[in-house]
């Protein structure tokens, strides 16, 4: 998605709000109440994003991200619909742990839809992921809950795909 994001960030490509139009549902004629729904154009971006001293884009493999001078420098790491894209969930959680300052916070929200085709080393249940988090050195705080949500849904379609995503906040224990 980096290219799509860069398209919005680039002053050469995107200058004003709602400059572009996309018809993301035009190809799928199923679950359609009316043709105009399927063919509709959607304007974007609602705001024009730019990189700032407060906002940096780092491209590359997450597992290879080692900011200098020391790795453990983040106060918060937020994983949104991300951890289930890991090919090795242990590596991912270990790396999150490593990148956090002692006492730092890991916030997670998402489903557990593992990459298909037996590409992941393991396909864990929620129970197993939480247990793994504990083993890696996280303490999941009270208030873990299920958040019902959609993902790139067509609001006007006759079909909904609902995730019962899990949300939790965890603290890095000093091991």
């Amino acid at each position, binding site marked *: 998605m980096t290219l799509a994001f860069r398209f919005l960030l680039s002053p050469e490509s995107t200058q004003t709000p709602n400059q572009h139009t996309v018809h993301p549902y035009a190809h799928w004629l199923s679950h359609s109440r009316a043709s105009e729904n399927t063919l509709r154009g959607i304007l974007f971006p609602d705001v024009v994003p730019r990189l700032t001293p407060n906002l940096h884009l780092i491209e590359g493999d997450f597992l290879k991200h080692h900011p200098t001078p020391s790795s453990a420098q983040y106060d918060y790491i937020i994983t949104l619909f991300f951890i289930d894209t890991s090919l090795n969930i242990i590596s991912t959680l270990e790396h999150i742990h490593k990148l956090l300052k002692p006492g730092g916070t890991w916030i997670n929200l998402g489903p557990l839809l593992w990459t298909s085709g037996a590409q992941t080393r393991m396909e864990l249940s929620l129970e197993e992921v939480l247990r793994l988090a504990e083993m890696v050195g996280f303490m999941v705080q009270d208030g873990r809950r299920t958040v019902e949500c959609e993902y*790139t849904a067509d609001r006007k379609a006759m079909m909904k795909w609902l995730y019962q995503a899990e949300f939790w906040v965890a603290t890095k224990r000093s091991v």
Partner: protein
Amino acid sequence: MSPSPDQPQGITLKHLLAAFLPLLVLYITVHILDLSSALTLFSLRNIILGNRPPITLDQNQSPSLKESPDIPPYFSLHRAVASYTSYHALALKELDALQRSYARLTYAHKKVGYELGYPRKLEGTKKAEEANAKLLESVAGCARREFNHEFELTPESGSGGEDYGKQVMPLWKLLRWGWREEDLRPDMGRAREAMKHFVRDWSEEGREERKRIFDPILEVLRRVGEEQRKEMKVLVPGCGLGRLAWEVSELGGCGLRLHKPRELRSLIE
């Protein structure tokens, strides 16, 4: 008189047929399956043995064009751009299939279809996809500009995508896996995911969907005092089109984003 068992037999026509018949069958199969536009002995060798080792999506493997000069890795800049630039052709092909299916109706039924406005709908789809293709071309153009050095190795012309479309899929792989994500032809999946993510992350239409998942997260961050926020470092791995990270940075903290190069559910990495 048949040769005695002790005498070595020469190569007969039978031997030649046994050797070449499988290749002939292969040749025909490949053409029927429309796998290759120009079949030579060299490409036959590639079909059987494959151009490169099987793709293993090792998370530690960083995709780069240098690793496989003939075929770009699955998650790579070139495949991503190829997916965007091939979109129009692939979308038209898809539409063509719909048209042909409709054309199989009887004349009487076609009249009904016309009354219903079905041909007009297909025409509408065609126009919408054309607009999408133009948008995706712009995204590809931006990529070529920003990753200018990566594209020096390949032709800069708009047909960069089609080159990869002509790669032959190793037959052993085809037989084993069928048509899968490792299909070396550019696929529309990536382009379509990108378009949906423009909506999800950066449109008014996606606001509700964002709110449900951003609110719990931003609520945690809002508990941090305003002064403290300035010193905070936040990482958002796999941030997609970056809306969450942008929202975090708007809170006044220091928002860093990190992209993984892989994302099919996302699109066009």
